[in-house]
């Protein structure tokens, strides 16, 4: 082949490839228009004031298509699939308690997306703002509203790399003081200090004493429930095979996802409740794999998200292993019951 014909082949190939590439980008961007229109039969969403105080309210990220997609919305706790009031604030993950909220959101920068955490007051005004080093995964506020925590996935950087890590941060919402990574805490395992480069923390949940928290610690291919002490800056392992713990309102039990052997690698978890005194595990009635940090609606009921038609739906199940799961709201994720 002469140089001329080679260049000709290249130019025509570039034209075809560019057309395919452009078509795929246009196709994907046309999706934006569809998603900005409300779907038929979906929940009604209207703008309105949303406050993080007032008993009997449920606040979550609305995932229904329409102009308020991804915004925080409030519904009466007794009618979770009813009309929604949208706050105009977009969050990927959210949680709130005692008039304090934490909202993890994406910031679309010129080069790439970055993420940040907003600490919100009861009227959704930003009190503090922090950088989040990766894709937000879990968010939690302490029952007192004095502490907030979040977890992010930090991606690998090698070619087609598959090593990921998590980073869990805790912030004092009153002073604004940030602990960027729980990895700075001393780990106590079997009574001794434990160190490893492969330590990862995720899924923080707080007790009401403004000092104790629980979280997942992963190291050496295993996960542990740890009890953390914010004053002594230590975490102590309590129980193996616990992920995304959620402390009950009375502080005696932890709901969590447990990796059950024999299940597929993509969907390996079942919801369990652990009694912190006896360390007795109770499997819950949800037969599907749950990848969420559940919330306690009250002392007897757990609420969590499962994949749905528009991203995720909310379900509830009794915390004692009885009954069966029930869908309470469609197109919703990151619920917080306000008390």
């Amino acid at each position, binding site marked *: *082949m002469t140089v001329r014909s*080679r260049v000709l*082949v*290249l130019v025509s*190939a*570039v034209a075809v*490839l*560019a057309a*395919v*590439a452009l078509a*795929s*980008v246009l*196709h*994907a*961007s046309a*999706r*934006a228009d569809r*998603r900005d229109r409300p779907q038929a039969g979906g929940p009604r969403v209207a703008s309105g004031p949303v406050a993080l105080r007032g008993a009997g309210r449920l606040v979550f990220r609305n995932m229904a298509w329409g102009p308020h997609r991804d915004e925080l919305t409030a519904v009466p706790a007794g009618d979770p699939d009813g009309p929604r009031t949208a706050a105009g604030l977009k969050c*990927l993950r959210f949680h709130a308690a005692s008039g304090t909220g934490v909202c993890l959101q994406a910031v*679309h920068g010129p*080069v*790439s*997306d*970055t993420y940040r955490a907003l600490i919100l007051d009861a009227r959704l005004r930003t009190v503090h703002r922090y*950088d*989040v*080093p*990766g*894709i937000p*995964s879990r968010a939690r506020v302490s029952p007192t509203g004095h502490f907030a925590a979040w977890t992010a*996935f*930090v*991606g*690998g*950087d*090698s*070619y*087609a*790399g*598959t*090593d*990921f*890590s*998590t*980073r869990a941060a805790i912030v004092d919402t009153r002073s604004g003081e940030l602990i*960027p990574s729980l*990895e700075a805490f001393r780990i106590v395992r079997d009574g001794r200090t434990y*160190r*490893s*480069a*492969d330590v*990862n923390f995720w899924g923080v949940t707080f007790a009401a004493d403004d000092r104790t928290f629980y979280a997942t610690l*992963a190291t050496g*291919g295993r996960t542990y429930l740890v009890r953390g002490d914010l004053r002594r800056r230590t975490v102590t392992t309590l129980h193996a095979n616990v992920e995304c713990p959620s402390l009950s309102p009375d502080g005696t039990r932890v709901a969590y996802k447990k990796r059950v052997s024999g299940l*597929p*690698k*993509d969907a390996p978890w079942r919801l369990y409740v652990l009694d912190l005194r006896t360390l007795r595990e109770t499997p819950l009635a949800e037969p599907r794999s749950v*990848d969420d940090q559940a919330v306690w609606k009250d002392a007897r009921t757990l609420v969590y998200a499962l*994949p749905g038609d528009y991203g995720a739906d909310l379900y509830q199940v009794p915390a004692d292993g009885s009954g069966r799961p029930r869908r309470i709201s469609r197109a919703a994720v990151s619920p917080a019951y306000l008390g």
Partner: protein
Amino acid sequence: MYLADSRARTSAQGAVRSPAGRRRAALAPTVLALGTVSLVTDVSSEMVTAVLPLYLVTGLGLSPLGFGLLDGIYNGFSALVRLAGGHLADRGGGRHKWVAGLGYGISAVCKPLLLLAHSLTPIGIVLAADRTGKGLRTAPRDALISLSSTPGTRGRAFGVHRAMDTAGALLGPLVAFWILRATVDGYDAVFTVSFCVAVLGVLVLVLFVPGGRHDTVPARQRPTLRAALALLRRRDLRRITGCALLLGLATVGDSFVYLLLQRRLGVPDRWFALLPLGTAAAFLLLAVVLGRLADRVGRWTVFLAGHGALLLAYALLLTSWHGTGLPYLVLALHGGFYAATDGVLMAAASDCVPDALRSSGLALVQTGQALARFACSLLFGAAWTVWGDRAALAGAAVALAGCAAFCLVLRPRGEVPA
């Protein structure tokens, strides 16, 4: 064999003192073509790498933790693929282009397959296939670069290639995030565009890189596996491989370096994702300069100086001084280390491998180095667990200094001391 052998000998001497007029000689078109192929392919692959975590977590709702568990097993397999690629390319009198093309092709086909894989196991398989393609193509491509440039300009040729390669790696994420910005959940568009770009890379290779040199090696002298293994009997190559291996054993993995940067120098979280870009930028800027320098003052000198830069980076990470410029300095040294070692090692190894076995020889050196670095990661992780990060790094620094000193003594024949 004798012919190729003697040519290799002159190559080694050419590295020492290249005629003054030759240094300004134009770069071989093949090197530019291969640089373009690598640039385009890196745009394609880094597009996917950049959005993969996001895709897994928000697109598919998967938990990416525990995903890297098979990495260790895969590293061993990847080493075998690399050796096989090198040997296959040498057989039949230089099928470098076609073996490299096969590698680029496999990686290209993997991109649309990502659209079909929706759970961890198939995605893991597609990524493994992608890396198999990369393992297959690396040695034949480097062999083509070295065979198409004169011995006296090889350092520069590899430098230009590595700079173009890195430029592609820097551009890829920009393209990917631009697409995500222009679309809603446009991962399908990212993978499709990535595929189109990868196909373009394969096309440039097929159209503009000359094929094998059937004329240079008569059929009966086609390299056998035994001949490839016998390469290790050559003292120079044995020394280079040995040194690459030793130094690789003291080269702490990139992710550890970034983790240490953050822990020891307190780099803010928001900059964490940008740390690899700092290394890449320094690599890009210095690759050509240091490649040329290697042609002039000797490849081994520059190669060892690169490890000196890495040693300095370790030392800076160990100090308790917390200047604002320190992270930049560490990243510049880290990128400089790559610029002074990655292509330069290939140029140095090319000097002591006959043409007919070039691909096998380079694959041997690369594999030794890769396995040693992997072993170092395991050792470093274990040392971190037992003694903590500072002590582990101090250990790595001492090991690096020791290995570098040893390699300074063991420099291959034909290289003059600085």
